[in-house]
Every structure is written in structure tokens, then in C-alpha cells.
């Protein structure tokens, strides 16, 4: 209780500034799905390095996807999409994409966390402090991507840390290290964004008209992703939301509605006392 503080602003850059001398350049991932071969080395490397418990053993029957999606025990997830618009062998194509926590500039999970367990690191990433989390679960439905999840037997929430421990030792995250095709690129956020813009122009020039960046722009509903993507189809095809939003952007309006509702309740109470006690 002696440490109780009033915290007002939790968006990325302003919080990073509070680190002062310890502040580091913002880092992230550029996941270029046009280079993904679906080897799942990222999934394995992540699980191994971070000692993420096993959970899914078996086959889903959904192409080569056996882990289903991101969650408490799956911090990288490779999606497999088989497309064949017409019955013709030449029209067949694979889409493969390694999904990960987006480390949003305006992170919904971090905004709503009541304990401060979720915090913004000196690298601009979003990490859960496992010694603080009390398992209230608010971050779980707050995340617009369905990334963070409660580990039932443990009671707390877990997600990608962007290998916070490795970053502190000047190492790249395990998934990027293991990726054999440079589909997962780790680096300074600004530099990755410039690289991604060049790459998408290059692919378009080669005739991939549907290539697009997802989460690169700071203009989107979460202020841009720390970990963004190059996709070859609509985001929803990969199980990603088309236009994600940090709903805390609207929370002021919600409180105003609550104040209006409270005023209406005062009116209802007052009216109830007209006419005496019978």
C-alpha cells in the first residue's frame, strides 16, 4: 500500500521516457509472411527458450496447423492456409504466417491491467510480471487479437515477452534467431518499418498486388504494432482482426455515459420519495 501510485498515461513512448538513462531504442518484429516456409522452428525455439508448457499434442486436421492459435502456452503460432480458387493445380497456393503478440503502441491489455503486472519495458515491449499478476483476467477479453490467455492450472496470464531476458543480454529473441528464412526479422522498430515498406513495394512490383503491411502504420486503432506483418491476403484470412482497436481510447466516453446514468438514477430516487412513505 505504501507503493500505491496514481498512474495516468500508459501509451508506449511516454512510458519509455520514464526509464531515463535506462531507456533503449524501441524494438520489435517484422514478420514477412511471404518468406515463411511453415517449418515451425519459431514455435519450437520459443517453447524451448521460454520453457512454455506443452499443451497441444495431436492433429487438428486443419492443414499443417497443430497448435491452433496463440495462447498462454503458444507464444508463436504458424498458420497454414491452403487456397485453390479454381479446380486447377496452378491456382493452388499456400499462405503461411507466424503470428505473435503485437506489442501494441497502445496496448489494451496493459491499459486495463489493474495491478500493474503488465508493464511497458525500456525496449517499448509489453510484458507480464508473473510475481504481480493475480489472475483477474481483464486483459484476456481486452486484447483485440486474442493473444493473452490465462493458464488455468497456474491462475495467471501468459504471453510473448519478446524474450525480455535475451534482450537484456543483447541477444535477439529465440524465434527470430531460429527462423531459417528471415521471415521473422528482429530489430529496431523504426528501421524495421522502413525495411517493411521497401519490401512491400518490391513485392508489388513483382506482381504480388495483394501484398500489404499489417500493423506498420501508427495511424491504426492501436497506434501501430511493435511486431507487425507483411501479409499476402486480408488479415481475417490469417485469423487476424481487420481493424483492431484499443477500446480504452473510448473509455472517457463510457465514463461520461456512466455519469449520465448516475444522474438519471438520482432522479429516479428523488421521484420515488414523492408521495410519502406509503
Amino acid at each position: 500500500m505504501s507503493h500505491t501510485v496514481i498512474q495516468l498515461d500508459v501509451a508506449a513512448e511516454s512510458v519509455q521516457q520514464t526509464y531515463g538513462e535506462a531507456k533503449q531504442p524501441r524494438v520489435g518484429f517484422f514478420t514477412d509472411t511471404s518468406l515463411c516456409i511453415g517449418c515451425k522452428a519459431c514455435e519450437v525455439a520459443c517453447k524451448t527458450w521460454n520453457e512454455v508448457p506443452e499443451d497441444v499434442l495431436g492433429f487438428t486436421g486443419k492443414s499443417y496447423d497443430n497448435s491452433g492459435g496463440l495462447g498462454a502456452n503458444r507464444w508463436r503460432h504458424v498458420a497454414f492456409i491452403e487456397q485453390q480458387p479454381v479446380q486447377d493445380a496452378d491456382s493452388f497456393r499456400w499462405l503461411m504466417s507466424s503470428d505473435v503478440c503485437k506489442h501494441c503502441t497502445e496496448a489494451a491489455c496493459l491499459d486495463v491491467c489493474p495491478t500493474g503486472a503488465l508493464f511497458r519495458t525500456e525496449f517499448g515491449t509489453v510484458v507480464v510480471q508473473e510475481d504481480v499478476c493475480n489472475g483477474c483476467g481483464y486483459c484476456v477479453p481486452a486484447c483485440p487479437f486474442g493473444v493473452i490467455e490465462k493458464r488455468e492450472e497456474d491462475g495467471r496470464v501468459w504471453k510473448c515477452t519478446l524474450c525480455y531476458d535475451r534482450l537484456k543480454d543483447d541477444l535477439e529473441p529465440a524465434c527470430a534467431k531460429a527462423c531459417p528464412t528471415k521471415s521473422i526479422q528482429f530489430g529496431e522498430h523504426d528501421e524495421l518499418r522502413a525495411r517493411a515498406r521497401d519490401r512491400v513495394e518490391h513485392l508489388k512490383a513483382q506482381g504480388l498486388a495483394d501484398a500489404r503491411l499489417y500493423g506498420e502504420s501508427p495511424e491504426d486503432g492501436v497506434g501501430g504494432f511493435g511486431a507487425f506483418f507483411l501479409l499476402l491476403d486480408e488479415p481475417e484470412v490469417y485469423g487476424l482482426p481487420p481493424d483492431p482497436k484499443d477500446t480504452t481510447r473510448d473509455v472517457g466516453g463510457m465514463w461520461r455515459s456512466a455519469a449520465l446514468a448516475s444522474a438519471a438514477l438520482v432522479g429516479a430516487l428523488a421521484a420515488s420519495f414523492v408521495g410519502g412513505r406509503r
Partner: protein
Amino acid sequence: MTLQDTTPTASRDGGSPATAPPTTQPGVPPKSNSYYGHPIIKEPTWTWEIPVYFVTGGVSGISSGLSFAARLSGNQVLARRAQMAAFAMIAVSPPLLISDLGRPARFYNMLRLLKLSSPMSVGSWILSATGGATALSTFGMLTGRLPKLSFASGGAAAVLGLPLSTYTAVLISNTSVPIWHEARHHMPFLFGSSSSAGAGALSTLIAPHSVSGPARRLAAIAAALELTTTELMDHHLGELGEPLHEGQNGKIAKAAKLLTGSGAALIATAGRRSAAAARVGGVLMLGGVMATRWSIYKAGFASAKDPKYTVEPQRRRRRA
């Protein structure tokens, strides 16, 4: 708001061309709007304690308001009964919330900081403050000691009871769950009026009929406000509101309206003269209050589970 079906992606994943949308033109890739129909967002992890707390916390807050108003109007008997209701309802609230936590022993971390971006953080402080004020006020009323402090804390609990009965609406609305977030401006009215309906109904039950007039009128007025809000919210949600109308949850939502409406009607008519009729109405309304919160709570799960509720509105937003 109209939604399309979430048809799985290309023909190969089901092994049959029948999984492709019928509008497919030769040479034009079939447009899918989900990944094998998987949800995009995660369902909440909350369990039954949470909707029950929505009722207990909210009913306590407005019962404090009813008690304080009764005290001001000189209706001491009603003031005492409403005070007991407020105390009982707030006393059970923290245990409900703590038992829902994944790590209940760490409940005190809720008061590590006051974080204005988190309605749960703000709410934890509101609940703590209201709980303290309600306990002080109840102590004073029962023992007759510290009358000034009891009066002041009764007033504080009455004022704090308003955000206590509505912050939970802000809490669930500030999530990515489509039905909750889209109804964000209706939810505080729904939660607040439902809390008032519950407070009125509970004091109608436990206070002598000769002094319970304000409680009965509060129950009736709040029920009218709640049912009106529900209609407006349904209209606003359109197809996003389906989880409140379909399946078992649809039945619960319908039961909520029937119980609230019939209970309020009974209280407002026969209940004016007959204590028995008023109490039957109170019981019906309390059932309605619980069913309302339960249906809103469960609708959030269905809304999170089907990706179409997340994808379609966002697609439209992106195109706009």
C-alpha cells in the same frame, strides 16, 4: 447491422468445393473471413461470481442511496432496512471477486496502484471506499453511536453507490467483446437501472409495507428505465445483439424481461395496497435482475466466440 457467415477459407480445407462461398466466380479467389472459423478474440475467463457481483455490488450501491434518502425524508424504518440490505450486499462482494481470481491470495495487488485507464482498478477503489462507508454507516445506525459520522458515511456511501452500480458496465464495455463494446453507451443505464430495480425490490421485500412506498416506486420506475434501455440497446446492436436473442441465453434474456416487467407491474398495482402482492412482485423482480446480468454476461462469451461479430464490423469500418 448485417453480418455475413464466416465461411471457411479455400476449397481444399474441407476437401470439398462446397465449402467455397456460392458467389465465387471462376478465377476469382473465394473470400474468406475467418481462419477455419476460429475465434479472433479470447472469451473472458470470468466465472459465475462476476455476474453475481454485478448484482450484489450494484444493489448495495443503490440501497445506500435509498437508505440515505429515506433518512433525509424522516422515514427511519425504511432507512434501517435499506441500510441492512446495502451492508449485506456489499459484505458478500469482495469474497465473490476474490474467489474469481486466478491467484486469490494476491487480491491486495488490486490496490497497488490507482490506474485511471483501467475501470477494474478504479472500481476496486470505489468498492473499497463504498464498503468502508457502508460499514461505518451501518455500525452507527445499529448502535446509535457516532451519529454524525454515521450520517456522513451514509451520505458518502449513497454518492459512491452511483459509480459502484455503473462502473461494472464501463468495465465490460472496455473490452474487445463486440456486443459489450458496441453497447458501451447503453450498458451504464442498463446496469444502473437494473441495480436500482434490485435495490427497490429488495427493500420492498424486507421493509414493512406501511413505510416501503419509496422502495416500491423506485422498483417500478427503475424497471421501466431498464426495459426501455434494453429496447434501445437491442435496436442499436442489430445483428451484433444476436447472442442476447438466440439459444438458451435468449430464453434467459426473455425471462429477465418477463420477470422484471411482471414484478414491477404487480408492485405498482396490487402491491400498493397488498403487502403480499408487493413482496411477490419483489421476488419476481429480483429474479429478473439476476437474469438480466446473467444474460449480458453470457452474451459476451457467444459474441467473442464467433469471429463474424469481430470481423464484419471491422471490415466495414476499414472500408469506410
